[in-house]
């Protein structure tokens, strides 16, 4: 009799009637073969595996995280709301201790969605993990959260949202940005002045195999988690590192994913990318589910798996060791780096250009954060998109100090009087307030 060692919750929402467009990788068929494999294996019959129905998240859930321009309805579809709702449903069940851990198998993905959303980027509109984490912080006793993004693409959306938050440790392992979309995620990208070292980026060379991934997990990810001591570990479980993925150049396998999951022990896993829908997803998803449930996965092997072909070169191994050590050094210096980043009360500015490949939008951002030793610091974002609007958005963090709150409201009022901003947003997380002024 098959019994799960850990009570594991699953949300399975393949959105069989939703696609970006008919031949897009993010289309109806994407989880079809996964559904077939998981159903044929009788996974939902296993004692200890519970299937949950996703929530439909609300506008208020989105407003804890994003500034949607011009508004939430324009940049999301029902499938986004249900996908993120899959994550919140699992998270709630974990917090209520109905389950030990859970996996939301939903689509479309979300980890490229940043704090300001003018449209779709990398098939993402709403950041599911961030919506889930902020939902948890408002409804349960959760403070420190670690998000480990194992998708092959840099999780630049999640990285952006938590750039200034020292209570959220974001770790992304991905194919080197010089060789893959979105082109970011280098070890030096460690977070804003108030949160240096709570953003960890580990670029891996093309051709990294299971051996390389697991090396980084053991040598860097686990020790950092150990030190950070999160209340919750979340895995953005993208599956496009697989050796058959059409969009990437890595050599990861179903066995590798299962072992990674066993090592990482995530409380919640959320499916991100992965476009080898026949050759990888059915086996990888099955492996992750079994690993989370604590069930033997040793026979979950792709039919065409050939370990000889999937060996990584010595050159790749060397590169991985180097980057892993470098990241460890940065993490060890994080307090120093925060001290050096600037003085209390100073404003620090960064300029960025963001391209929305899915919706063909170009955005220019000027972001200012108040360096603060008492809170995570208020962030003011001046954003103009073409096509799109020129807006100003103010984010006041959950733990905001009196000064940061005051500065935030001032910035909001001042901008509201300026002709050039078509919309001005205020997201006051310390009081749970969201305001929009339009002209």
């Amino acid at each position, binding site marked *: *009799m*098959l019994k799960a060692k850990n009570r594991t919750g699953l*949300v*399975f*929402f*393949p*959105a*069989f*009637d*939703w696609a970006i467009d*008919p*031949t897009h990788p993010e*289309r*109806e*068929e994407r989880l*079809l*073969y996964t*559904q*077939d*494999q998981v*159903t*044929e*294996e*009788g996974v939902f*019959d296993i*004692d200890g595996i519970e*299937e*949950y*129905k*996703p929530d*439909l998240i609300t506008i208020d859930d989105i407003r804890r995280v994003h500034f949607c321009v011009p508004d939430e309805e324009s940049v999301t*579809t*029902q*499938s986004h709301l*249900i996908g993120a709702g899959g994550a919140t449903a699992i998270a709630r069940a974990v917090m209520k201790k109905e389950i030990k851990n859970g996996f939301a198998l939903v689509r479309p993905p979300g980890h490229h969605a940043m704090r300001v959303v003018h449209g779709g980027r990398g098939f993402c509109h709403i950041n599911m993990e961030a919506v889930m984490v902020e939902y948890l912080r408002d409804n349960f006793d959760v403070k420190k959260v670690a998000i480990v993004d194992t998708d092959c693409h840099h999780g630049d959306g999640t990285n952006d949202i938590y750039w200034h938050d020292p209570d959220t440790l974001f770790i992304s392992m991905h194919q080197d940005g010089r060789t893959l979309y979105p082109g970011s995620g280098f070890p030096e990208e460690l977070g804003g002045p108030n949160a240096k070292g709570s953003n960890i980026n580990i670029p891996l060379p093309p051709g990294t195999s299971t051996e390389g991934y697991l090396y980084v997990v053991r040598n860097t990810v686990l020790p950092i988690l150990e030190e950070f001591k999160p209340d919750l570990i979340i895995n953005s479980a993208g599956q496009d590192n697989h050796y058959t993925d*059409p969009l990437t150049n890595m050599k990861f396998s179903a066995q590798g994913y299962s072992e990674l999951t066993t090592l990482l022990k995530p409380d919640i896993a959320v499916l991100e990318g992965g476009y080898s829908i*026949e050759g990888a997803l*059915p*086996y990888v998803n*099955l492996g992750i589910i*079994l690993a989370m449930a604590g*069930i*033997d996965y*040793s*026979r*979950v*092997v*792709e*039919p*065409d798996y050939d370990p000889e072909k999937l060996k990584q070169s010595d050159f790749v191994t060397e590169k991985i060791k180097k980057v892993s050590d470098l990241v460890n050094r940065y993490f060890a210096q994080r307090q120093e780096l925060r001290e050096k980043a600037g003085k209390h009360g100073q404003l620090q500015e960064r300029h960025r250009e963001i391209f929305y490949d899915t919706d063909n939008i170009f955005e220019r951002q000027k972001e200012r954060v108040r360096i603060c030793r008492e809170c995570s610091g208020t962030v003011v974002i001046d954003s103009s998109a073409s096509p799109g609007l020129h807006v100003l958005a103010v984010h006041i963090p959950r733990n905001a100090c009196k000064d940061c709150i005051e500065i935030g409201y001032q910035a909001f009022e001042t901008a509201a009087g300026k002709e050039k901003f078509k919309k001005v947003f205020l997201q006051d997380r310390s009081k749970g307030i969201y305001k929009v002024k339009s002209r």
Partner: protein
Amino acid sequence: MIIGLDVGGTHTDAVLLSSKGVEKQVKVPTDVSDLFNTVLSGLTGLLKDISPHEIKRIVLSTTLTTNAVVQKKVDPVGIIVSSGPGIDPEFFRTDDNYYPVSGSIDHRGREREPVNEMEIISAGKKLADAGVDYIGAIGKFSTRNPSHEIQIKEILKDKFKKIFMGHQVSGNLNFPRRIATTHLNAAVYSMHKSFFNAVEKSLKEKGLNVPIQILKADGGTMNLESSMEFPGQTILSGPAASVMGSIAYAPEKKDTVVFDIGGTTTDISIFINKVPLLEPVGIQRGKYKSLIRSLKTYSKGLGGDSRVKVVDDNLMIGPERMGPAMAFGGKVPTPTDAMVVLGIMDQGDKKMAMQGIDAIAEELGVSTMKAAKNIFHQACSMILTEAFEMVDHINHKPVYTVHEFLQGYKIKPEKILLLGGPARYCAGEIEDLSGIETQVVPCSSVANAIGAAAARTTCEVSLLVDTEQGFAVSPEENFKASVPKDYSEEDVRKTALSLLKTKAIESGSDPDNIEVETIEFQKFNIVRNFVPKGKIFKTKIQVMPGLIRRFHNICGQSSGKDNIKGEKKK
């Protein structure tokens, strides 16, 4: 006229129905050790003074399979599984006679690894040496491509009396359940065969030549011939018989909850617009999970004879039954005793009932009448709670499309139907507690036999079309055809319908009375490297469970005299 016979745990009911209603009914005690004579004496009683030529249909619902499984009186079965990658097939081991072999078919029905003949011969030899006569061959994804199961059967066909193949039990995906279901079929086959052949022979001797129909767990029937390939489908047909017998009283276009209140348990089921709800995958009872189509029934360990006791100052009712109620010679107090004390039920030994409830009253520190009231009230609200939890559970079943998620049909019961011995006494209380119109099914005591007699022949067909690989396949129907690239949605529906009609008629359906319903229809574009390569269609259609046309309202007509509405009492 038609005959329905339902073998129950203690009694066997048989009815003779004409288009006017119940012509005759017979009740005989069930002899669990001799079901053959039980069935025969029921039929003999019914057929007295009736000309065999007037009988057009006979449907039997028996506990043969259920009993055999419970008493473990089944044949040893050998199982050979070929699983390919995934969960280790060792987890699904049935017993020592279980052999995983190589061979792999993937989710799209493509062979990824062939079977190994030597390995199969060697497993077959070990099974034959162990004295096994019946074996099952089950492959993962055999419903997509049964070739490995067929090869195993070919290789071993001379070594065993009969070989059952997994792909024939259902079009549904679920490898562990396919193993369990195939095992069950093989285990009860010889007993099923000899039993029904004997029944058929005795009926022929009585001049009855109509083909026997057998009731299945899904509330439909199949003929004897079809049952030989899949005898497991007869398991748990008893609850289905009662449910079918109450259909006539379920309102149209509304949801109805049916309670079959027995001595030990109460079975709960649901109608949506007069159609009973089915299990999505197959029967489950505790840890046993199968691919056998079945009505969705939930069994709660609470009935008229459930034991009542006091634990930490609280009333506990059920789940165990220690014998009959004290009013009928039992040793422990029961809800039936409470009803006798309250005067709701005017039967049995009231003194004994009083004595039982008294003991409970003393422990609770209340009057005897108060204790009886509490027991009665609590028993009725417990089964209602159970029913609403079941409805809630069904309403929260996950769905896989945005459309279904947003449109999600929610069951909202607007009528309650009651069956079984204690039913008539509980109707008022249940109506008061639930605020839902409650009715006791007329002829409630033989509703099961009526349900069996008038149940339609049902079946289900799954069809998978893959235009990239150029095939349409329904392995359970032995169907595989090549299709062109432009095979349309309409072609898929037509093919599925013709397969279903053929199957229904072969199983004994009246060709003019096949009500078809599409359970599932999905269409996917196959795209590789941004280029459309074809389409996948998945469909599942069924003949819905229901009553045969001429007998749609049969029960309604015979209902005039004892139609008991829930009576309000304060």
